[in-house]
Each structure stands twice: as C-alpha cells, then as structure tokens.
C-alpha cells in the first residue's frame, strides 16, 4: 500500500506550515487536521479550514485523501477560521439570557421602574400569562438545545456569541420593560384578543417542537446525514407539504401570537426582525435542498406557503 505525503501551506502567504509523510490513503481530512494540530497546537481542528486551492471551498472532515484529485504528494492550503465556540454553548447562553432578564422586569426588581413599584405585581392577567409564555418558550429552547437538536457543524466563530447575545438579550429587555411596566395598557379587545393570541402561540409552539423532533429523527445520533424531511403522522408536520422550513414558519407564528397577546409594538418589531432573518435562512436551506436532491417536492416554498 502506497503512503501519501501531505504538505500544508498557508493559503495567504504560501508559507510551508507542516509536512506529513506516511499518511494512509484512507485517511480523512479530520485525521489530517488532528495531525496538523500536533505541530501547531494553537490551531485546533475546529478552526482549521483545509482546501485544495487557496481560494477554493473548504474540504469536509469526512473527505478521504485517496478520493481527492491529488497525487501521492498532496498540497493542502490552510486558513485560520479564528477562535471557535460550540453551537451548544452559544445557544445555551443566548437563550438563558432572555429567560432570566424577562423575569427581572416581571418581578420589578429595583432600579428599573420607580421605587414605589419595586417588587410589586401587575394587576393585569395578561401580564402574568405573557411571562409564563415567554419563560416556557425559552425553557423549551434550552431543553431542545440539550436533548433534541443534532448539529452538523460543531462550532461557529467566537464573535457570533457577542452579536447573538446582544440581539436576544437586548430585545428581551426592551419587550419586558413595556409589558411589565406599571403603565402597561392591556389589549384593546380584552380577553377575546388574549385567548385568540394564546391559541396561536400554543399551536405554533407545538408545531415548532414537532418539526424539531421530526428533523431529529431524520438524522441518526453522531452522524451528519442529510435527507428530505417529509410529513409524518403528526398533523403539525403536514406543513412540510407546503414549506421547506416549517420550524421557522411556526416560530414566526408564535411571536405574532405573542405580539397580539401583549399588544406591544416592540414585540411586533422583534417578530419582524426575526422573520427577516429566518426568511434569509429558509431561502438558503431551500436552495441547498434543491441543489442536493433532484426529486425535491416542487410545491414547497421556503417559509410561507405559496408566497415566500
């Protein structure tokens, strides 16, 4: 069996960083990354991008050396992706914040509202209901991060955690401030409006959870396989017939429900911003599905049935 030689060059400076000899032909990129870390410990595998061409696409961890278009001496180009942080860590941090912050406002902790309101409680039922909904929503997200989601990428760039937390924590504080304010005005159409909004919220939360479970079942533990999602026996998953990313559809629905329930403009703005971002993600995902699967159902739209 012939062994390969692998030399790793810096993609920008073309400087020779590492030379590996006696590499197995069946070695994967992941294994090569591990070998590279041995000589350069500050570049752990998650922050390495290895490619065949300095300006080309990154090779995948699963790619096998033998199957790449290289001779027995392979030249790989290295790019540093910067400090990385695990998705799980980011999710837990960005979701724990709103949960905690909202409660600070709900319990009217000192220095937020005037001192005469410290630790007082709102006399509006909807305010208590809103706190329950908001809190359960983020508890659900935390539990899903720990037990449900299966991530294809382990990590993301470190600076994302600051950007993401600012977004989630900032909006949570802004919404919570008004909903729990002593001068809060309950919805114009009273209990009817709240009941309808609550129904929308609960249905969409159940829907979102159902989709997360369905997506999880598509992929065995520890793998990175990708398959077309299809509706299951669960009626909430039937939205897959019309939409590529029903989890995002349900998520937007939940926040619209919450906005109607609280009749609070900041909540509506949060929903709008979230919808914009999720639409961008849904379109990207939809495009990937179309590229990867020839038999992808043609009726499906990215996020809104028939429209978007």
């Amino acid at each position, binding site marked *: 069996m012939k062994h390969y030689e692998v030399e790793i060059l810096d993609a920008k400076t073309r400087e020779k960083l590492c030379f590996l000899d006696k590499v197995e032909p069946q070695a994967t990129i992941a294994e090569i990354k591990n070998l590279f870390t041995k000589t350069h410990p500050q570049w752990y595998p998650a922050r390495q991008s290895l490619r065949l061409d300095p300006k080309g696409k990154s090779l995948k961890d699963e790619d096998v050396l033998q199957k790449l278009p290289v001779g027995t001496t392979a030249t790989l180009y290295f790019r540093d992706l910067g400090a990385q942080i695990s998705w799980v860590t980011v999710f837990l941090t960005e979701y724990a914040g709103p949960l905690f912050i909202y409660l600070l406002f709900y319990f009217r902790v000192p220095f937020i509202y005037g001192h005469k309101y410290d630790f007082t409680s709102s006399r509006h039922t909807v305010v208590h209901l809103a706190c329950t909904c908001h809190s359960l929503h983020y508890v659900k997200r935390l539990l899903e991060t720990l037990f449900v989601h299966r991530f294809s990428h382990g990590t993301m760039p470190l600076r994302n955690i600051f950007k993401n937390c600012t977004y989630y924590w900032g909006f949570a504080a802004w919404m919570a401030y008004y909903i729990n304010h002593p001068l809060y*005005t309950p919805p*114009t159409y009273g209990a009817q409006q709240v009941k309808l909004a609550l129904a929308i919220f609960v249905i969409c939360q159940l829907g979102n959870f159902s989709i997360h479970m369905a997506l999880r079942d598509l992929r065995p533990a520890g793998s990175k396989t990708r398959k077309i999602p299809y509706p299951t026996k669960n009626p909430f998953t039937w939205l897959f017939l019309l939409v590529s990313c029903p989890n995002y559809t349900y998520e937007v629905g939940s926040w619209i429900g919450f906005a109607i329930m609280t009749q609070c*403009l*900041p909540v509506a703005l949060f929903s709008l911003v979230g919808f914009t971002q999720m639409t961008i993600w849904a379109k990207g995902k939809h495009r990937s599905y179309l590229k990867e699967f020839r038999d992808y159902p043609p009726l499906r739209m990215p996020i809104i049935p028939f429209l978007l």
Partner: protein
Amino acid sequence: WLVLAIAMVRFYMEKGTHRGLYKSIQKTLKFFQTFALLEIVHCLIGIVPTSVLVTGVQVSSRIFMVWLITHSIKPIQNEESVVLFLVSWTVTEITRYSFYTFSLLDHLPYFIKWARYNFFIILYPVGVAGELLTIYAALPYVKKTGMFSIRLPNKYNVSFDYYYFLLITMASYIPLFPQLYFHMLRQRRKVLHGEVIVEKDD
C-alpha cells in the same frame, strides 16, 4: 450646491451677519440635500460601486441634520454652528460632484482630484463639530417641548424619547466618525499615492 454657496456668500456680504442665513437658503438646502437619497439608490442598483452601508450612513446623517434638527427646531437656526456645517457641506459637495462630473467626462484636472482627497482632512472634522454643536444647542428645547416623543401609557405599549435619542446619536459620532475618516484617509493614500508612482515612471 454652487447655488447654495453663492447664496450664502451674497447673504453675508449684504447683511453682514449669519442671522437669518439659514432661513434664506433653507429651501435650496432641503431640495438638494434630500435629492442625495438617490445616491443610496445608485449603490443599491449597482451603477455605483460604493457600499450601500457607507453611503446610507452618510446620507442619513445629512437628512437627519436638515429635517430632524434644523428644520424642526427653529430656535437653533441662527446658531453659528449651523453656518459651520453648512459651509463645510457646501465646499465638500461642490468638490465631490465636480470630481464625479469630470471623471465621467474623462477630463479630470489634477487639482479637483487633489481637492477631493485633501479638503476633507479639514472639512470633515469642521462639519462634524458644527453638527454636534448644533445638536447640543437643540437639546434644551427638545427637553422642554418633548417633541417627537411618545410617552406611556399608550395602547401600543411603546415609548420614545427624542432627547435621549439625540444624546445617543451624539455618542454614536465617537465610533462612526473615525471609521469614516480613516476610510477616506485610506482612499487618499491609495489614489494619491498611486498617482505619485505613475509620475515617477514618467
């Protein structure tokens, strides 16, 4: 903008004071400065290679000054700081638009290019100073009248305080101004430095 410049110079020569200057040129100013919104559109549709974000920030700050400060807060219209930024904007825009026009005609006199990439070194900080001083002068009036603000309680459960918004805007100059300034300095080095090398080859 030349119209504006001439109007301002004539006013000062006739009246000898800057008081009432803004009032006399305000329609022209509003007309031409608002039209600058087109520059954002040009970036969006791609006929101009500049970033939408950079142009957006610069045009927005001008629109903000003209409509949300000087137009809306009448008591500060006779402040000296207003003249400061008006003069700075006028000279800057005349230089900038001349640069674009001559570039398009393929007959760019070196001094226009020189002006476009050197005047800003003084004009930019002067303009910013004028803008900041004007906003600062406006603060007491904004606080007293509570203009452009939404108070609680209201049925959409939202509030907005224009006074604090202005304070935050003033603070935002601190990170934004150096970025735009250094961007221009880098452009200058690229354009004028390149020019020097070409001349040496000759």
